[in-house]
């Protein structure tokens, strides 16, 4: 559908063929009406580009996504791909947003759509607004703090579970200042700093305990079974006592204390959206926790791993239908990382019980393998091996080496484990050891197989990327980053370039795996974006960054070495990984703040319209 058609629609001149086409598509005889409109600058009257217009149809939406977002084109016009009957949107709420702008007309923000004859037209007027405190992403609050390794480290640790700062963190900062004022210590710098340090230090300890919230219903990794000493034990927690000191120092001295005003934050790269871009959000039940979704060849469904409820989600993006499939285990498993393959299976790494599972939708068949490795019998994080990630290839599909082994990262033990699903054979080897670091605080994270299958490239959050040679079974080509840089989920392209997202440092690294040398390091448009994973898009030749902290997806073009921004229509839009739907090129992802319920729980698809 062209922009011209949209504009014609606005003036209620309906192109007949257009209507017939849509009637045929939706199989209904109801006449087609568009939901459309224009966003203009209240002062100049000119159209405003790149405004997101979000239609919330409520969870009882007739079909498809319950929340749909489109964007205005260069002329300010938008149009929804909803030419079914009006009952699918009349009475629902329409909301617009653009960073740096404020809606002035209609006055009261979100609009309830009322019916009229023909097309439904909803126009908005906006004006530039300097104070973006109300619609800025979490990352924006960190933008004025100088870039240091300590800042990277705090981003790495805090944003590892949830956006930072969350509304609650902002509230807490206010409570600290209130406490200082109550003490009469506002003008006493030393005393104020003491209170801030002591308070943030309390939060670090608190977070060591709150980490346990990630585990599933019925979990055996259970805070209620642990002593306080065990919870704070360096051997069993992701950040040790030195890390804790560094973090509370940084938070006490660097964090903003005023969260009412925020100016000067910009995306720092052009928007990668157009009037043809459509973002669809599928709301999931509050009690579920689908941290990750994947697609598998030959299946039109989006598959999600529900960590909380020990089950898989099958979402039909066309109808919005959700079906759930329980993991057949007497023990809780906590489905976490999910990857498809070329024959229609799903492979799922579990947070609990050291399990890797294969699910075959055809015939509803499961197979589970247990990779028990040095279990310490304590109900604590770090006691189990924890199968975290599994090897995939350049297309983000499961990858096996020449002997048939899938390579797994065991985050609890800092080990690479090979599993041959044909024979059931499992073997494990230490990943790069880091002096002064316990295995869990090294945090062995993402892995993938090189195109020649010789290297299982892995990332350790402590700041290392390395190749585990699947033939010699040794670690080689160790790449060291500053502590806090936080390499996370890697990607490899068809030219054997490895793409490394530095979650803490907010950078993207290009590494030549053939020459074994670092090619370039690119600063992200917002270095507090927290790129959790990168995905190589073979059709567009774009690297997609799934950001945890910027409420935006970044696309990086390796040829022009430039970024584009896909803004998400959601605050607390914590992303972890993006899959490119091989059938239509849509980006598929999900929101994933820890713990369950602390942020939006939705599956998202982005139809770029490019």
């Amino acid at each position, binding site marked *: 559908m062209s922009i011209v058609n949209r504009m014609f629609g606005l003036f209620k001149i309906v192109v007949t063929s257009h209507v017939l086409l849509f009637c045929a598509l939706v199989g209904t005889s109801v006449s087609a009406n568009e939901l459309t409109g224009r966003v203009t600058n209240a002062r100049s009257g000119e159209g405003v580009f790149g405004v997101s217009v979000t239609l919330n149809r409520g969870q009882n939406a007739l079909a498809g996504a319950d929340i749909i977002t489109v964007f205005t084109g260069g002329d300010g016009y938008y149009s929804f791909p909803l030419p079914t009957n009006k009952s699918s949107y009349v009475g629902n709420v329409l909301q617009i947003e653009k960073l740096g702008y404020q809606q002035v007309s209609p006055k009261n923000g979100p609009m309830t759509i009322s019916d009229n004859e023909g097309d439904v037209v909803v126009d908005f007027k906006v004006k530039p607004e300097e104070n973006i405190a109300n619609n800025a992403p979490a990352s924006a609050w960190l933008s004025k703090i100088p870039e240091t390794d300590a800042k990277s480290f705090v981003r790495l640790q805090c944003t590892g579970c949830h956006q930072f700062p969350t509304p609650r963190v902002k*509230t807490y900062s206010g409570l600290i200042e*209130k*406490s200082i004022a*109550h003490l009469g210590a506002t003008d006493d710098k030393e005393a104020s700093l003491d*209170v801030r340090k002591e308070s943030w230090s*309390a*939060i670090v300890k608190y977070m060591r*305990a709150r980490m346990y919230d990630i585990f599933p219903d019925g979990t055996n990794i259970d805070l*209620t079974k642990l002593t306080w000493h065990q919870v704070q034990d360096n051997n069993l927690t992701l950040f040790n006592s030195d890390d804790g000191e560094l973090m509370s120092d940084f938070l006490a001295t660097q964090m903003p204390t005023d969260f009412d005003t925020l100016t000067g934050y910009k995306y720092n790269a052009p928007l990668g959206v157009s009037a043809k871009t459509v973002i669809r959000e599928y709301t999931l039940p509050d009690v579920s926790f689908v941290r990750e979704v994947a697609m598998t060849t030959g299946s039109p469904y989006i598959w999600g791993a529900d960590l909380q409820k020990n089950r898989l989600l099958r979402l039909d993006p066309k109808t919005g239908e959700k079906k759930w499939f329980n993991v057949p285990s007497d023990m809780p498993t906590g489905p976490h990382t999910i990857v498809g393959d070329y024959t229609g299976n799903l492979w799922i790494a579990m947070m609990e019980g050291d399990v890797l599972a294969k699910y075959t939708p055809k015939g509803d068949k499961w197979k589970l393998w247990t990779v028990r490795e040095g279990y310490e019998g304590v109900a604590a994080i770090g006691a189990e091996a924890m199968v975290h990630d599994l090897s995939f290839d350049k297309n983000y599909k499961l990858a096996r080496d020449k002997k048939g082994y899938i390579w797994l990262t065991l985050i609890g033990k800092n080990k690479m484990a090979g599993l041959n699903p044909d024979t059931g054979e499992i073997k494990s080897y230490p990943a790069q050891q880091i002096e002064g670091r316990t295995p869990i605080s090294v945090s062995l994270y993402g892995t993938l197989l090189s195109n020649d299958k010789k290297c299982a490239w892995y990332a350790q959050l402590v700041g290392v990327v390395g190749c585990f040679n699947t033939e010699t079974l040794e670690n080689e080509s160790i790449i060291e980053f500053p502590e806090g840089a936080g390499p996370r989920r890697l990607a490899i392209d068809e030219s054997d370039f490895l793409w490394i997202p530095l979650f803490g440092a907010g950078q993207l690294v290009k590494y030549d795996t053939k020459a074994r040398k670092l090619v370039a390091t690119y600063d992200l448009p917002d270095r507090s974006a927290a790129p959790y994973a990168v995905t190589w898009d073979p059709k567009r030749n774009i690297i997609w960054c799934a950001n945890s902290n910027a409420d935006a997806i970044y696309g990086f073009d390796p040829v022009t070495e430039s970024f584009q921004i896909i803004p998400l229509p959601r605050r607390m839009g914590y992303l972890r990984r993006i899959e490119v739907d091989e059938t239509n090129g849509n980006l598929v992802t999900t929101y994933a703040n820890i713990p369950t319920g602390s942020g939006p729980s939705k599956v998202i698809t982005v139809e770029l319209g490019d």
Partner: protein
Amino acid sequence: MKKHLFGKLGIAILVSVGVGFVAVNLLKSKPPEVAGDLPRAEKIDQNKSEVVSKFSGLEMGEAYLVKAGCLACHETNVMRVGPSYASIAEFYSDADPETLENLAQKILDGGAGQWGVVPMISNPQLDVETARDMVRWILQQEEQE
């Protein structure tokens, strides 16, 4: 570190209402309030069913406390980041209904006060009735030998 900053500051002003007062029953008589975007009853039902399914072995008030993450800072007998439940119960054993209602509100809003300068985190995800359930349970706790 300036140690004197972190002692008990005694900010809360408590009004005793006499011996034999049972805080729990008075708390129960408070009128319901609307919280969040869900009808209150529905929100409480949702909370309850989830808490029951996840923490079937625990009392409701205690289950709420675990689910809300309170255990990360508090337990019955031992001081973690914040005071033990037993010491809170002892401190407020003679407190009047208003003070106790304020305690429920304190769980929602967070903040420092009676127990030092380190503020408690806010809990905007809870409704006031759940917070009252928590206070009821906390005030029944006793120091164990």
